[in-house]
């Protein structure tokens, strides 16, 4: 099978994107301005990201669907209101992570946004777990774009006037040229922003409309530096089948009520791990100076004993310095612990630090009116 293209491929070409293959798709890594300028534009203005390679899984059903999904996800779905979103994960019995995702309660069911590289497998796993009792569809007829940055609400409002009423982690259906589009106020950059699910035939026009109002296309390169500055996990790097949400420091995403009652995939393991304390923890790491410690760099304590490994590392354009995340033995996970990172066979000093590396004034749960 050849490389897949999103419905915005031609637009990316028109804007002189450099392409890379990502999860089987030809995706823009950057445009003419380059990763650093694109990153900074998103932090100060509004960037548009084509994330149509990601999976949009619609599952339809009533109360019995909610009950079945609660056997899978560590979420209080019974009390999740219409148009509200939650971050979660699909786990195995051992609490290893198949994928991380955003699930939104919609009228008559749920919409789950899945990672591109995982979506087909997720679909298989979920179909099997739900025993074909519900209508489940990985929708390829819809594209997904994100608009992110402090001006995103102002710009999106010019195209979809009612969008301002959305609060963080909520969504809703809106009309665009007689078609229904689904918008959530969410994102993956640490900025205010929206994700827009729209039929393939209209996505180019919609995106061009946002560009005409001042937003700019941003590639996957800046998407990665933005999410890393925001301390957000990338599946395949921070998260995989050998990591649990507890080790990944994502306990906040597990419903307290569900945690005490259990009954979701991996719940026994998670309870045990919370009791015993995880051996390793995801942390932020800042190398001294300008040195970049990338994925797979080993971490040592000051006595030169191995204590962990970097999972993502780059230069943070807004932090103006190198940043990384990784897993480290719990006893060394405290902020300001001095460690060594191995790069090209040499060890260099670094510090454990809190996440995110970059924080906006307005944050989770805030109202954006």
């Amino acid at each position, binding site marked *: 099978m050849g490389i897949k293209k999103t419905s915005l491929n031609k637009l990316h070409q028109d804007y002189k994107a450099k392409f890379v293959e990502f999860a089987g798709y030809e995706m823009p890594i950057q445009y003419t301005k*380059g990763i*650093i300028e694109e990153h900074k534009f998103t932090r100060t203005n509004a960037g548009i990201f084509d994330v149509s390679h990601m999976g949009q899984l619609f599952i339809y059903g009533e109360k019995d669907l909610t009950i079945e999904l609660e056997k899978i996800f560590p979420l209080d779905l019974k009390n999740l209101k219409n148009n509200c979103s939650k971050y979660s994960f699909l786990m195995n019995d051992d609490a290893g992570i198949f994928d991380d995702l955003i699930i939104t309660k919609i009228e008559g069911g749920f919409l789950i946004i899945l990672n591109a590289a995982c979506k087909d497998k997720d679909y298989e796993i979920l179909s099997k777990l739900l025993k074909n009792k519900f209508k489940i569809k990985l929708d390829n007829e819809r594209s997904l774009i994100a608009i992110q940055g402090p001006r995103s609400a102002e710009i999106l409002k010019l195209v979809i006037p009612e969008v301002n009423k959305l609060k963080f982690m909520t969504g809703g259906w809106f009309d665009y040229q007689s078609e229904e589009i689904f918008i959530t106020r969410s994102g993956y950059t640490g900025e205010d922003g929206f994700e827009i699910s729209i039929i393939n035939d209209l996505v180019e026009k919609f995106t061009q409309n946002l560009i005409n109002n001042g937003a700019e296309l941003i590639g996957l390169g800046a998407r990665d530096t933005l999410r890393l500055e925001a301390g957000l996990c990338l599946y395949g790097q921070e998260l995989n089948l050998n990591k649990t949400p507890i080790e990944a420091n994502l306990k906040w995403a597990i419903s307290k009520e569900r945690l005490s009652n259990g009954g979701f995939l991996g719940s026994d393991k998670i309870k045990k791990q919370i009791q015993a304390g995880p051996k390793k923890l995801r942390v932020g790491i800042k190398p001294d100076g*300008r040195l970049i410690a990338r994925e797979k760099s080993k971490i040592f304590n000051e006595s030169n004993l191995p204590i962990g490994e970097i999972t993502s590392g*780059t*230069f943070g*354009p807004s932090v103006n310095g*190198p940043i990384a995340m990784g897993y480290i033995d719990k006893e060394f996970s405290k902020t300001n612990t001095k460690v060594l990172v191995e790069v090209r066979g040499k060890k260099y000093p670094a510090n454990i630090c809190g996440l995110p590396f970059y924080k906006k004034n307005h944050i989770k749960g805030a109202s954006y009116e």
Partner: protein
Amino acid sequence: MSEVKFSKEHEWITLDGDVATIGITKHATEMLGDIVFAELPEKGSSVDKDGNAGVVESTKAASDVYTPVSGEVVDTNQEIVDDPSKINDDPEGSAWFFKLKLKDKSEIDSLMNKEEYEKFAKENAG
């Protein structure tokens, strides 16, 4: 100053007496994208033709810098270490990497001239 010569690893080199100045080409910086880190060989160390002589990193990846000729490192450009974005701004001018006292001047003869390099770079682009 001699004519600028180019290597297949996308370094440029000019010669002044028996001291060569070496940097990476504009074409190389365009392939790399925004450069955010540079590491240079130590002053006083010896480097061998086609051997490692530093590292540049973009936000995406690290790339080795090679030396197209052998010699002793007599100077390095600390400015590009302190502000690697200068490499993108002026790769074939002020953002030189290091200067070598040459071991064997004839090593330069096998390198490409500007015209040959441009043809090579075009054929190897993307």
